[in-house]
């Protein structure tokens, strides 16, 4: 790892991102010309935040003509989880969606996906888990712990970071390089349609 910077901010990412990229490049003694690839979070997360990162990444990819890798927030959090914490359990990565249906993805104890990235109510997450013992990571736990407690399932909380970290993105990119064609297309993973109502009053499912 040549350089790393992380700043938590609720807003202001559009201003901060390029100065941060510049500072890690400088610290690494490199410039954009030295980059051979780029990896970026595709989501889920704040729609605006995702677009800030993805628009910047797609711009750099186009301008520098380099390959790219998109990493989901789930894979990034999973990557940061220490092996010792898994202890034979399935892994549920749950992310706060600011609504009653968290974003989540379920993985096996060997970190293979058991579900696709998804968003649904805690009851449905429980159905998916079935009788597997799970360890839960991510900031979505607060929204589902009540349902999990009353269902009486065997779950515990992992000690992994709650939010996505750029080191995980870079590590995953290095491990999965060169990217597959599919992963190289930097598409946002919104997991939610825009909140819209069409002019005839029906809620939209576009997007």
């Amino acid at each position: 790892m040549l350089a790393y910077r992380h700043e938590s901010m609720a807003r202001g990412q559009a201003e901060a991102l390029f100065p941060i990229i510049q500072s890690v490049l400088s610290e690494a003694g490199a410039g954009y010309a030295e980059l051979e690839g780029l990896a970026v979070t595709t989501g889920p997360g704040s729609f605006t935040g995702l677009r800030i990162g993805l628009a910047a990444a797609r711009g750099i990819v186009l301008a520098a003509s380099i390959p790219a890798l998109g990493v989901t927030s789930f894979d990034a959090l999973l990557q940061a989880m220490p092996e010792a914490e898994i202890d034979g359990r399935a892994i549920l990565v749950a992310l706060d969606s600011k609504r009653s249906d968290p974003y989540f993805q379920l993985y096996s104890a060997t970190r293979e996906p058991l579900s696709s990235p998804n968003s649904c109510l805690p009851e449905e997450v429980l159905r998916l888990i079935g009788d597997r013992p799970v360890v839960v990571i991510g900031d979505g736990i607060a929204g589902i712990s009540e349902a999990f407690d009353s269902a009486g399932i065997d779950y515990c909380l992992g000690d992994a970071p709650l939010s996505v970290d750029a080191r995980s993105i870079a590590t995953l990119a290095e491990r999965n390089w060169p990217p597959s064609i599919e992963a190289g297309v930097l598409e946002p993973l919104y997991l939610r349609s825009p909140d819209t109502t069409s002019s005839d009053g029906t809620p939209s499912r576009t997007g």
Partner: protein
Amino acid sequence: MIVLGIETSCDETAAAIISDEGGRPRILSNQVLSQHEDHRPFGGIVPEVAARAHLRHVDRLIKDALAEAGIDFSELDGVAATGGPGLIGGVIVGVMSGKAIAAVHDLPFIAVNHLEGHALTARLTDQVAFPYLLLLVSGGHCQILAVEGVGAYQRFGTTVDDAIGEAFDKTAKMLGLGYPGGPALEQAAQKGDPERFKLPRPMRGREGCDFSFSGLKTAVRQVVQNLDQPPTEKDVADIAASFHAAVADVLQDRCRHGIERFRRRHGDDVTLVVAGGVAANRTLRDALAGLCKAEQATLVCPPINLCTDNAAMIAWAGIERLRQGSVDDLAFAPRPRWPLDPDAPAAIGAGVKA
């Protein structure tokens, strides 16, 4: 000098490249992708839908603009992107794309005020000299300004409620003409009787150059409600024509006041430039031509594809700013609100349209 422009502030995703060698500007490419089909089911622009569409398309449009111009990033002298005002989710996408290209190729980055893009278009298309009078009429804006230089604007008036394009869209919606309403309403008005319905002319005769359109919109709603049955094709045509007549009268009156004020400030020679999507409306252009003839002013209407939102105007404003040495750094913060004339008093009720 060759500059790339990026525009993502509303419902068009656009990229364009302009060269300017010895004061002879040329549009090397002008790519515009309209999102009308994305928004049509909702009867108006949905910001989140717009932001998603901008991200989906903007990098490809930039690539296409370079290909159409037959140049490479290395031949650029700067990158200009709309930095506001507008729907912030979209503005962010264009700004980040522009910053990325500027960063990778170590080029100056210029965050352009979308309104300044409209304001300076006539200098790209018709080499109009400063100062001139500008009527900026679009879906989101309705203002009269004196353009005195790059970055030097005096706002004479603005709308105190709806923008003119909004009035068109809402009226078209009431008449069941779909979205976007402007072109459909103009089409319907062709066969209509502009005298049949007596609609109000808000602000006509008042001091100054401010606009108001909400009363006109309400009057149209009452006309529709007072019909004995759902409007027939003839009713729609007559309402559309009467609406056009009212808006044309208002524009003539407000611009006449603008011309007078401009003359007091800058002398007798007046060039009135019309910009913004509403400038595509033939009836309104004719009304302004009539006014300018009577007032012995010169009317300049840029081609329609450069009046509606586009990136050529952003690239051009970028060139004008670059010539001044007025560039932005990569920490630029996108601005949802960004008045051209920050000293003008806020117009009550106008929101970002001021």
